[in-house]
Every structure is written in structure tokens, then in C-alpha cells.
């Protein structure tokens, strides 16, 4: 029997044995064990090292408040740092390793810090490491950074999946101890939709750890029976292994369910954890209370733990933490601990009770008015030194010490809306304040009601109050002992270090130093000493720390106040918060109608928002992207090219005021547009900056189709709805997006018409379908379609649209029927080349910082009508003569390369901000001009056409002489597009 500390009883399944390792050493445990209970059963007390001084540490608790027994679980991509051994459920094959130690847990070289600790007092680093100046980043900080941190992160991808979900209920009950179970029974029997969530894998809370009876039944059995009854109610959802992490606005709670953490690996397809968003009509916080230590010298040795943890290990897990045990207490819990352990056959050698008077505990050495003032033992407790009332000190050999300084209600979630807890002197602890999250009630120990009876009663009453219930179940009999606690925060005797925050190594002396240096606000105390900032967020340390500060400053505890708790209640895996949105599934894909065709061709795709657009379509033998793009451009300008432009936003605008509405939202006029025609529209924001552009066609008297840029499709639609509903609510305008309803292709080039005529059923000769014409047509023998004669490339061009399902087929049909014209399909790169050759603005120019005037489109802003942005576009700073103007740029030496983002400088000017003339917004290689060309915003650029300047890219060390030219670099007269 390797489990030398295993005693009888407990809620573990002794019929099955689980094998696990800790630091490579094999051990055995049972189902129902946590890693900590199993290690303790095997006589292992040393489980970790502290953050700063690398002090040897063992668990002080049996729950999620644990600051010390923090380990790395599993290996490889599943390596999980900073896992609390006290809540890690044992499974067969579990691998755990200690962390923050070198070379081993027992012999940690960094333990030297402990010897030097006097130099490492709170905040010492703020006062030194400043000389010489350069040494901080080169020497001091790297050493500090290497030494800091707890567990280590694997660099491998987490192989497990995470999921999210949404739940709805009338009542969410947080915690399934006696309070939560009674609340659930009350609400469940009333037929309400209830969610009962508990972070433990076994419901029952402290009932599983105590020996109290409820009625005639042992508490743990009562809890099990209660859970069994609740499980039969269809209106109740029992969620074990589920931690409610936060209370958010309006009754929304976050909860993390650990679906697979108790398994070696998740079952195929199943998530490791699920983040639930719970919409709760009401909620009851029944999260119980956390026992708090007392600070005394060397109170951190493995073997020293909370008295309630000693009971829990004995009663729930059948583990005697030590063979000779003492208890140090300031309240009746210490007494109870001694009795429980004695009943289990453990040798309780003394109860050190800081209180005076009262009954003496029979059969145990009960030292009243006494304190533990020191302990010894190298890697675990071997003895304690006790100071009695008469001042005499005595050393007692023990291997475990239970400490109880009273219980802190778990108010955390109640303060997530920044409600401050209030001090209740009767239990020497903070209880929830008056203004918590609306709809959240607190019951049981979380509200400061510490007896089992009070837990059951307040749990029931909270359910009645929350749901306004008429009837309720009877309360079973249960103990109703009063809280008898006499506050003792720290032992004043002793010169050594008494630990307040065990993980962060904050001592009573550190608190005193903070006081001495005037860091007396609780927030200053926290920030200066790091008290309460460890992975346990001060669950066992905060109250002691502030109570000590209160004493030092002569203020009361309420005057001193407390810091507040923030979500999450316990730390949450990043994976759970992200759910499935990672890797390729970070955002959904949007595929164009020609996607499948393009994929067959081996096209290269580019992300444009969530769209995948064809960037270029390589042909056999093309080894470099420019070959493909140049070919696409040349072929289009020579004959005909086709481009999928479905991603452009399309908005159907109808109503008798549609034209007037467009006049408001566009800077130029649309109400005068003839039916069957389209027009380029410029849309401003109210601040006069260009928002978006596109062509809008009048398809009928009261019907327009607006086109937006791909990037702004959603925001333009939102803006139009704002204008329609909020600014001009009496206009008769209806809007609907048709972006995805139509597959739309640009067909451009001298042979565009000839090709299209083979598709379109109607006559589209120049006379029948002139430049800027638009209309409903049919294609391929009767399929409804739309045709717009518009051009972004400067060529004779059309955009043709069919219902999306026919898009793929239309493209193939155009390529097949137009084969005689050698049509090519071009992607966004070639599209960019052709639009820049023509000086059309797009993303680089529509940067949210530029006006119509900057773009050379100032005349488009009509002053004859009110439109969004018209007035503010005329502000003095935006109409300066020497402001930025859009220009074309080409290098003087045609071989020279340009880079978008390069800045303009006059010849001979130093590259400093005062000489900065502007920048290149977009750059391409123009196969027609045989050189790089670019668009740019140049100060006073309209007056600099024909001049020579320099373009510099200081990031790449480039300095190039260029000629400033008109943005219309190709076919400036526009003869081709009217062809």
C-alpha cells in the first residue's frame, strides 16, 4: 500500500486504482481524488515553490482558492501551466510536474533568493537597478524576466477544441452546497427553469467535507440524494465542473464547463471546455465561504494548511495529512477539526486557541490564549513553537497544522459590478454590499450565514424571493451553531517572516514597509507589495493584508476598505474564451460565384475582408506573379477580360423618394438621373471626408441600385438606414442588400461588347445601350440579368449580373462563347493596375482622411442641395490651396522601382518632416507605360504636374527621382471607354 496516509471513509472509489506521476515519480490514487488529495495520500506534501523566494510549499486548501500547490499538468501541446492540484481531478495516466524550480523541487537553486530576502523587500526594485542607465535592459531586466513567471507555456498549438453556447433560465444558482441545493429544490419543485452550476465535480459543497448530519442523514449522503432528485426534474439543468466566472450586465453570466479535463484526452470531436453565456432572469450566489489563514512566522511550510482543508482531506478523500496534528484557531472551526480528526483516529496533539475562556475541549490538549509563533522543518513541517498566555514558549513536534482564522464569504461575483463588500464584525469578515448586480441574490455562507441550517434556510428563502414563489419545501434539521470568532490577523510575536500572500511571498513586514512609505490605501498596498495579485487573486490573503494595514494605521477595517474583485472568479483558459474562432475558423469565409472556377484554374486568392477574391490566375509556364498580372492587363486592353466584382456592395433602393434620398446621401445629384442610366456617386461622411464611392443606376422611376466598395458595403448600408430612419423618417424609401443575390462580372476591353452580345439576348450596340446605360436584360435565352455600361478599367466595359446560382455558369459560358476573342479572367491585381492607370481612387486613396478636393473631385460636391458632409467639407482647414491633391507619379528612370507609402520630397531636400510633401497611396507596374506608376497625395499637387520630385522610402533606403503627372495616366481623353 503506497498510499501511506490513506485512512478509511471518504467519497472515493477504492475499487479502482488510478496511476499518475508527479515529477516523474509514479503514484496511485482513486476515482474521486484530486491530484492534491492523491499526493497527500501518498505522503507528498511538497508540491511547489513560491514566486519570489522559491520557498517550498504544499497545499493550504482543498479548493480553487489554492495559492501554493500549482503545477504543470500534461505534456506536449496539452501542457497546462499553473494548474491547481487541489481541483485537478485525478485520471489514469495523469502526468504532473512541479514548476518554477531548478533543478528540482527539493533542491531549488533559486532558493538562494530566500536567503537574500532582506534585500528583496516590497518595492525594492523601484529604488535600484538604475545605474548605469543601459544596464536595465541589458542586464537587470533580462535576469528578472528569466526568474519571473510560474509555469511555462508550450510553443505548440493547443490540440484541443473549445466550444461556446448560450443558455436561458429563470434562475441561475451558483454553487451546489447546502444553500444552492436547497434553492434548486425550491425553484425546481415550483417548475421554474433552473440552472445549478458548481465548480466541483461532485455537488454538495462543504457537506462533502464535513461530518454534519442533515436530518438523520450524513450531509454528504443528503447532498447525493438531493442531487439525485434534482436530476429527475426536466426543468433543472445540473452543471458540475462548471465555474461561473463573472456577472455581466442585465443578468448575463459567463460560465466555463470543463467537459473533458478529467479525461486523458477529449473524446473525438468533443470540446475540452465550453464557455456558456447564461441569460438568467434571476441568480443566487451560493458560493460559500473560504477559510482564511492567520499570519505567523514560517506559517508557509508544507503540512500547514487550513483547518477546513484538513477536515476535507480526512472526510471527503480519506486522507490524513499528518500523523501528529495540531490546530491553531481563533474560532470554533478549530475545535471541530480536532474532533473530526480524532474521530478518524488521527493523533491530535494540541489545539492552540487564541481565544480565552470557554469550555475546554475534552480529550485533547487545548491551549487557550495561545499562539503559534514559529515553525520548523526543511521541506515540510516538523514542529511548531507555541507561546502560551503566560509567555512561555514550547516546541511541539507535529507534521501537520490546521489553521483557521475565520471564514470569508465568497462575495467575488457579487462585486463584479464594482459593488464594495461591507465589513460584518460579528463574523469578522466582509459580506456582500447593498448594491450588487441587479437580480443577483446572495445566500448561505456567501452572504455570511455560516451554519448549515442558515445555509438551507437562506437558500430556500432566496429562491422564494427571486421567483416570487408561494410555496416551498420544508427545511430539514441541521446544525445551527453560532459563529464564535475572535479576530486574529497576525501573530505579533516573532521576528521572522509571517506570510500573508503565500504565492507572491508578501509578508507582514512588507505590509509594514508599505505603511512606513505611505502606501496606505488598499489599492496602493496591493500595487506596491503585489498582495492579492497572484493566481488566486488574494482569495486567502486580501482580507488579512488590509486588516493588518488597518491596525497599523489605527483605522478601522471598514475605514480601510477593500479592493474589489474582478472577473473571472477563477482563471479561465484562453481557448475557452475563444471557442472555435481560431486558425482558419477565426472568421467565416466569403466565396465569390467564380470561386470554384478559379480554384480549378489554380488561381491565387487574396483576403479582402472575409472575402476570398481572385488575385490573379496563373497560366502554365508563368513562374512569377507579375507575368500573370501583366498578361491579364495586356489581354484585357487588347481584347477582353472578365473580373468577378460580386463583392462590391449592392443595395436596392426603392420608393417614391428614392431619388431625393440619394441626393441627401450622395454629394452629387441623382434625382435627375434618367431611368436606364447610371452615374458615379461620391458619398461623404458628415465631417466632409469621403466615405465611399460607386455607381448607382436608376432601374425604374422609383427604383435605384447602388453600388458600394467591397470594404464599406456593410457600413454604407447601416449609414443609409440611419439617414432613412433617423434623419428623414418621412421619406418613402425602402432598402435591402442584394450583394449576394447577384453574381456580377466586369467585362472589359475593346471586344467586350462583341463578347457580351453572344450572351445577352437584347441589342447592346452603342446606340441601344450607350455609355453609362443600365437596365434589366436577359441572357442565354431568357435568364433575367442586369447590365451596366460602366468602366473602372478605362476600357469599353460592362458589368453584367445574373442570379448568383448561375454565376459560375455565366462565366464559363462567356469564356466559351467568346473564345474567338481570347478572353481572360483577371484578378484584383490586374484590376488595380488598370484603375491606377486611369487614376480612379480606391482603398489607398479612400483612407478616411481625404476629401473630394484632395481626390480632385471637389466639383462633385453640389452646393445647390443639402447633403451629408456638404457643409463641413467647406471648413477652412479642408479647402486650403496647398492641401493634398491626387497626382500620378512615374519614375524618371523607367527601371526604377516605386513603393507605395513612400514620401514626396523636393530635389535636394533633407528627409525630415518639415519637407514632407505627401506620400504614394498606390503603386503598380504598368505594362503599357513600361514602368512603375503610382498615385499619391502631394501638397499642392495640382500645381506640380510636370515637375520632377523625389520619392523616398527610408525604410528601404530608396530615393528615386520621379515625374509628377496627371492621375489619368492611360487614355486620358477616355476614348476607349466610349468605343
Amino acid at each position, binding site marked *: 500500500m503506497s498510499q501511506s496516509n490513506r485512512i478509511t471513509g471518504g467519497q472515493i472509489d477504492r475499487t479502482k486504482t488510478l496511476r499518475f506521476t508527479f515529477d516523474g515519480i509514479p503514484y496511485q490514487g482513486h476515482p474521486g481524488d484530486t491530484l492534491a488529495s492523491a499526493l497527500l495520500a501518498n505522503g507528498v506534501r511538497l508540491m511547489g515553490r513560491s514566486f519570489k523566494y522559491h520557498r517550498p510549499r504544499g497545499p493550504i486548501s482543498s479548493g480553487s482558492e489554492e495559492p501554493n500547490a500549482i503545477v504543470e499538468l500534461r505534456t506536449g501541446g496539452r501542457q497546462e501551466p499553473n494548474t491547481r492540484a487541489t481541483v485537478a481531478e485525478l485520471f489514469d495516466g495523469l502526468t504532473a510536474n512541479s514548476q518554477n524550480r531548478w533543478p528540482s523541487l527539493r533542491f531549488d537553486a533559486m532558493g538562494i533568493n530566500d536567503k537574500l530576502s532582506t534585500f528583496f523587500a516590497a518595492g525594492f526594485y523601484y529604488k535600484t537597478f538604475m545605474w548605469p542607465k543601459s544596464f536595465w*535592459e541589458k542586464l537587470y531586466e533580462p535576469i528578472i524576466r528569466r526568474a519571473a513567471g510560474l509555469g511555462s507555456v508550450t510553443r505548440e498549438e493547443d490540440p484541443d477544441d473549445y466550444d461556446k453556447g448560450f443558455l436561458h433560465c429563470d434562475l441561475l444558482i451558483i454553487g451546489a452546497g447546502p444553500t444552492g441545493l436547497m434553492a434548486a429544490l425550491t425553484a425546481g419543485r415550483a417548475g421554474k427553469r433552473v440552472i445549478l452550476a458548481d465548480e466541483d465535480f461532485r455537488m454538495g459543497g462543504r457537506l462533502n467535507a464535513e461530518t454534519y448530519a442533515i436530518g438523520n442523514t450524513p450531509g454528504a449522503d443528503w447532498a447525493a440524494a438531493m442531487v439525485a432528485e434534482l436530476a429527475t426534474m426536466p426543468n433543472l439543468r445540473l452543471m458540475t465542473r462548471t465555474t461561473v466566472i463573472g456577472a455581466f450586465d442585465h443578468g448575463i453570466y459567463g460560465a466555463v464547463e470543463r467537459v473533458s479535463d478529467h479525461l486523458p484526452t477529449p473524446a473525438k470531436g468533443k470540446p475540452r471546455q465550453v464557455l456558456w453565456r447564461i441569460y438568467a432572469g434571476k441568480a443566487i450566489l451560493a458560493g460559500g465561504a473560504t477559510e482564511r489563514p492567520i499570519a505567523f512566522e514560517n506559517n508557509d511550510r508544507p503540512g500547514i494548511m487550513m483547518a477546513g482543508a484538513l477536515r476535507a482531506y480526512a472526510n471527503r478523500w480519506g486522507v490524513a495529512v499528518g500523523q501528529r496534528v495540531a490546530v491553531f484557531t481563533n474560532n470554533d472551526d478549530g475545535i471541530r477539526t480536532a474532533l473530526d480528526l480524532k474521530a478518524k483516529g488521527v493523533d491530535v496533539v494540541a489545539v492552540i486557541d487564541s481565544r480565552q475562556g470557554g469550555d475546554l475541549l475534552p480529550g485533547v490538549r487545548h491551549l487557550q490564549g495561545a499562539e503559534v509563533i514559529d515553525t520548523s522543518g526543511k521541506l515540510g513541517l516538523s514542529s511548531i513553537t507555541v507561546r502560551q498566555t503566560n509567555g512561555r514558549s514550547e516546541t511541539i513536534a507535529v507534521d501537520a497544522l490546521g489553521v483557521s482564522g475565520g471564514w470569508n464569504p465568497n462575495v467575488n461575483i457579487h462585486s463584479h459590478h464594482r459593488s464594495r463588500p461591507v465589513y460584518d464584525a460579528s463574523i469578522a469578515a466582509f459580506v456582500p454590499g447593498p448594491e450588487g448586480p441587479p437580480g443577483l441574490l446572495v445566500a448561505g455562507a456567501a452572504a455570511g450565514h455560516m451554519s448549515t441550517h442558515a445555509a438551507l434556510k437562506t437558500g430556500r428563502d432566496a429562491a422564494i424571493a427571486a421567483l416570487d414563489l408561494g410555496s416551498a419545501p420544508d427545511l430539514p434539521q441541521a446544525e445551527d451553531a453560532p459563529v464564535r470568532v475572535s479576530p486574529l490577523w497576525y501573530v505579533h510575536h516573532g521576528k521572522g517572516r509571517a506570510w500573508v500572500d503565500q504565492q507572491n511571498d508578501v509578508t507582514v513586514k512588507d505590509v509594514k514597509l508599505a505603511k512606513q512609505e505611505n502606501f496606505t490605501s488598499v*489599492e496602493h498596498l496591493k500595487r506596491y507589495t503585489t498582495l492579492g495579485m497572484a493566481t488566486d487573486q488574494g482569495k486567502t490573503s486580501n482580507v488579512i493584508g488590509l486588516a493588518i494595514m488597518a491596525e497599523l494605521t489605527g483605522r478601522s477595517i471598514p475605514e480601510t476598505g477593500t479592493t474589489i474583485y*474582478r472577473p473571472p472568479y477563477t482563471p479561465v483558459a484562453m481557448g475557452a474564451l475563444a*471557442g472555435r474562432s481560431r486558425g482558419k475558423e477565426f472568421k467565416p469565409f466569403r466565396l465569390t460565384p467564380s470561386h470554384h472556377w478559379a480554384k480549378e484554374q489554380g488561381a491565387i486568392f487574396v483576403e479582402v475582408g472575409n472575402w476570398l477574391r481572385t488575385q490573379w490566375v496563373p497560366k502554365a509556364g508563368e513562374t512569377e506573379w507579375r507575368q500573370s498580372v501583366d498578361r491579364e492587363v495586356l489581354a484585357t486592353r487588347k481584347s477582353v477580360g472578365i473580373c468577378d466584382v460580386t463583392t462590391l456592395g449592392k443595395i436596392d433602393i426603392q420608393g417614391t423618394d428614392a431619388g431625393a434620398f440619394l441626393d441627401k446621401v450622395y454629394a452629387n445629384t441623382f434625382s435627375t438621373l434618367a431611368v436606364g442610366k447610371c452615374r458615379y456617386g461620391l458619398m461623404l461622411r458628415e465631417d466632409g471626408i469621403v466615405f465611399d464611392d460607386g455607381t448607382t443606376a436608376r432601374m425604374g422611376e422609383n427604383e435605384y441600385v447602388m453600388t458600394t466598395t467591397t470594404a464599406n458595403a456593410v457600413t454604407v448600408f447601416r449609414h443609409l438606414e440611419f439617414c432613412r430612419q433617423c434623419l428623414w423618417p418621412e421619406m418613402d424609401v425602402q432598402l435591402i442588400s442584394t450583394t449576394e443575390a447577384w453574381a456580377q462580372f466586369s467585362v472589359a476591353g475593346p471586344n467586350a461588347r462583341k463578347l457580351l452580345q453572344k450572351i445577352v439576348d437584347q441589342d447592346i450596340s452603342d446606340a441601344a445601350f450607350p455609355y453609362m446605360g443600365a437596365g434589366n436584360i436577359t441572357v442565354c435565352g431568357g435568364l433575367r440579368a442586369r447590365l451596366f455600361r460602366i468602366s473602372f478599367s478605362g476600357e469599353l466595359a460592362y458589368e453584367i449580373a445574373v442570379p448568383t446560382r448561375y454565376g459560375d455558369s455565366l462565366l464559363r459560358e462567356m469564356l466559351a462563347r467568346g473564345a474567338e476573342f481570347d478572353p481572360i479572367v483577371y484578378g484584383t491585381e490586374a484590376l488595380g493596375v488598370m484603375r491606377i492607370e486611369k487614376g480612379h481612387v480606391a482603398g489607398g486613396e479612400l483612407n478616411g482622411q481625404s476629401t473630394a478636393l484632395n481626390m480632385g473631385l471637389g466639383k462633385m460636391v453640389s452646393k445647390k442641395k443639402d447633403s451629408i458632409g456638404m457643409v463641413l467639407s467647406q471648413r477652412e482647414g479642408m479647402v486650403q490651396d496647398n492641401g493634398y491633391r491626387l497626382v500620378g507619379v512615374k519614375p524618371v528612370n523607367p527601371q526604377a522601382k516605386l513603393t507605395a507609402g513612400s514620401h514626396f520630397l523636393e530635389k535636394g531636400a533633407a528627409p525630415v518632416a518639415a519637407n514632407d510633401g505627401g506620400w504614394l497611396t498606390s503603386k503598380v507596374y504598368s505594362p503599357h507605360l513600361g514602368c512603375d506608376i503610382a498615385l499619391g497625395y502631394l501638397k499642392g499637387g495640382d500645381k506640380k504636374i510636370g515637375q520632377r520630385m523625389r520619392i523616398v522610402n527610408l525604410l528601404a533606403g530608396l530615393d528615386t527621382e520621379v515625374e509628377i503627372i496627371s492621375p489619368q495616366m492611360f487614355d486620358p481623353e477616355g476614348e476607349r471607354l466610349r468605343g
Partner: protein
Amino acid sequence: MRYSGFRVIAEALTGHKGWKPVWRDPTPQAEYDYIIIGGGGHGLATAYYLAKEFKQSRIAVLEKGYLGGGNVGRNTTIIRSNYLLDGNEPFYEFSLKLWEGLEQDFNYNAMVSQRGIINLIHTDAQRDAATRRGNAMIMHGADARLLSRDEVRQMYPWLNFDNARFPIKGALMQPRGGTVRHDAVAWGYARGADQRGVDLIQNCEVTGMRIENGRIKGVETTRGYIGAKKVGVAVAGSSSKVMAHAGMRLPIESHVLQAFVSEGLKPLIDGVMTFGAGHFYVSQSDKGGLVFGGDIDGYNSYAQRGNLPVIEDVAEGGMALMPAIGRVRLLRTWGGIMDMSMDGSPFIDKTHVEGLYFNGGWCYGGFKATPASGWCFAHLMAKDEPHKTATAYRLDRFRKGLMIDEKGQGAQPNLH
């Protein structure tokens, strides 16, 4: 008391009995030459530089809570000067230079650490914008480098390079960017100001302003009336509330920005990184926690707490970029009130009330600005003219159409 390694050793050997209070707790005087409202980073820095650089005296800082309790105590500690626009870049570069000499200047180790910041690039358009920005930075005397995908991969090989929805194509790096121990900044300035005779008055909330004939006379506080010749307001998220005492409406909205820290981890990330395809930025503190954040929640709020959707959004960005952090645990979230301005840029300006000065609108860029903001505000208050790096931060710039809109989002504060 001067701090030094020697001092630390000497104190350690004598039981730390000699350490003195880092600041006094003075009783407010009846009148001061200068009152700074707001004992956060900017207010404390202003007082410090007023005393130290501009040789002014009779200065008080009034703080409604505790010193350093505003956004200087709840930010993600990043410093950088990688701005684009002329109105901003000289100012932030000035600030970065002040950071570089700060600790020696105020004899307090705020752990200014220039381990570099990279902004990841995922599209050609982002590379073009990064090129424009990098050039602007260099022209203003700052440092910038454009990294290739391979160079980024060398720095952080475990980022998502192979299965990313939006592949990493490179990064704009500012090697001089980095982080600072934020609380220590407040304490260092507070200590330096206190040593120069500035009265730092905590738990003193301003409840009104006394203005006569268009001139400030003093302020009403929860600790009584205090007279002043000049009053400077540097109250971050409370700007609208405080300036309302002077009858002013501001081009500012208050929004909540959440920030996050993970449990302590052994070194993973050396510098600062921002994800260009999602809302996520991250660094690792000297204590080992990953400190990260993302977008503001997006609605007006003074609640200093946020909601789940943004927490999830930020985590999604983090996991998309760093698939190895799935099992790293988020330890704590918190929210601060951001003075979101109408163009994303701040104000350091006089007001229509003579002797009343305003400093605010820092959005979520206020921490990195702390030294220059204090210096320039002190300059403005002492000399009644703006510092040369802060001439654009005027309240009337929207009237004139001189916005400093780095993001190009227009007059919508929650988008900056």
C-alpha cells in the same frame, strides 16, 4: 531621500527602518498658484515638470481617490511613438525621449523597457500604410523598421504562420517601443513632485469651479474651497464631468476599455505585438503575466467594467495569432474609462475661461503620452503658449477642419 542600490543594501542590513514616506499627506492650503485637478499620471507629471522644469511653486494636485488610481493604474503599459500624422508624431516622439531618461530624472525605477513593438501586417494595403507610417516616423526623428514575414517568424516562430485565416506578411517595428511599470510612473512623479514641495492631496474631489469675470478663482472641493491663480484639468475619463463645472461641452465621449492579464508564465513574448487582422495586442510583464487588450466595448460608459463579447473577441484574436496559448489562463479583466475624442487625438489647450487649462481626450493612448503630456501641459500653464510639439492639440480644431485622425474614422469616438 535619494534611492540607490547602496541605499537598498544599507537599509536591508539595518531592518529597513530608514525608508521615509514616498509622499506627504499635506492639508490643503487656502490658495495656490497652480492647482492640477487629477492625481493620475498626467496630473502628477504636470505638477512635477511645473516645479522642476518651469521652476514654479505653490502647486497642488487634487485627487478624488488615491494617487495613480486613474488610467495610469489600469493600462497595458505600452510606450511607443509610431504615429503617422504631423500633429501627433513629434509629440509622441518627445514623450518617448522623456521616457528614455525618466528614471534617472526622477530617481525612481519605473522599469522603462524598450524591447520593441511590432504591428503585424496581413495585407498589401496594410504594408503600404505601414510604409507610409514608418517613413513619417523616421522623418520625425523616430525609429522604424519594416520586417518581412521571415523576420517576424524568427522573432516569434510559434505565431500562427501556417494555418492562419489572415496570414502574417510582415510587420512594422519600432525597436524603441516597449513597456513601463505603470504604477511606478505615478509613484515616481508623485515622489518627485512631493520632494519639490508640491502638495499632493488625496481624497479631495472637485465639486465646482469659482469663475469670476471670465477668470478662474479657485475650486470647490470635498475638502473645502481652494483658491488658485491657474487651474489645470487632467482627469482622463472624467473630463466632461469636471469641465461641465466651467460650463463646457467637449468633443469627447467616455467609453470603457477592458484590459486583461494572464497568470504568470515563464518568458514567452519579449516585446509588444499587435495583431493586424483582429482586435488584440499583447506584451509580457516582468512578472510573467501576458498583458493584453483589444477594442473598447463601444458604448458610452463610466462603469469601469465591460462585458463578455469584447472579452471573447479579444481572446479570439489572441488564439488566432497565438494558438499555443489555449491553455494559458486569463487571470483578471478590468475596465478603465477612456476619454474618446472625435478624431482619436488629445487636447492640451487653454479654455474660454482665463487661467483654466484642459488636458484630455487621450482615448486609449494616454499612458505612453504621460511624460510629454505633463511637460507640455506644464509649459502651457507656465508660459501661456503651447509647447512646440503640442501645437495641434487645440479644442477648436474641429471647427477649423484640422482633425488629427490617425485611423480615418471620422467623428465617431468609439471607432478610434
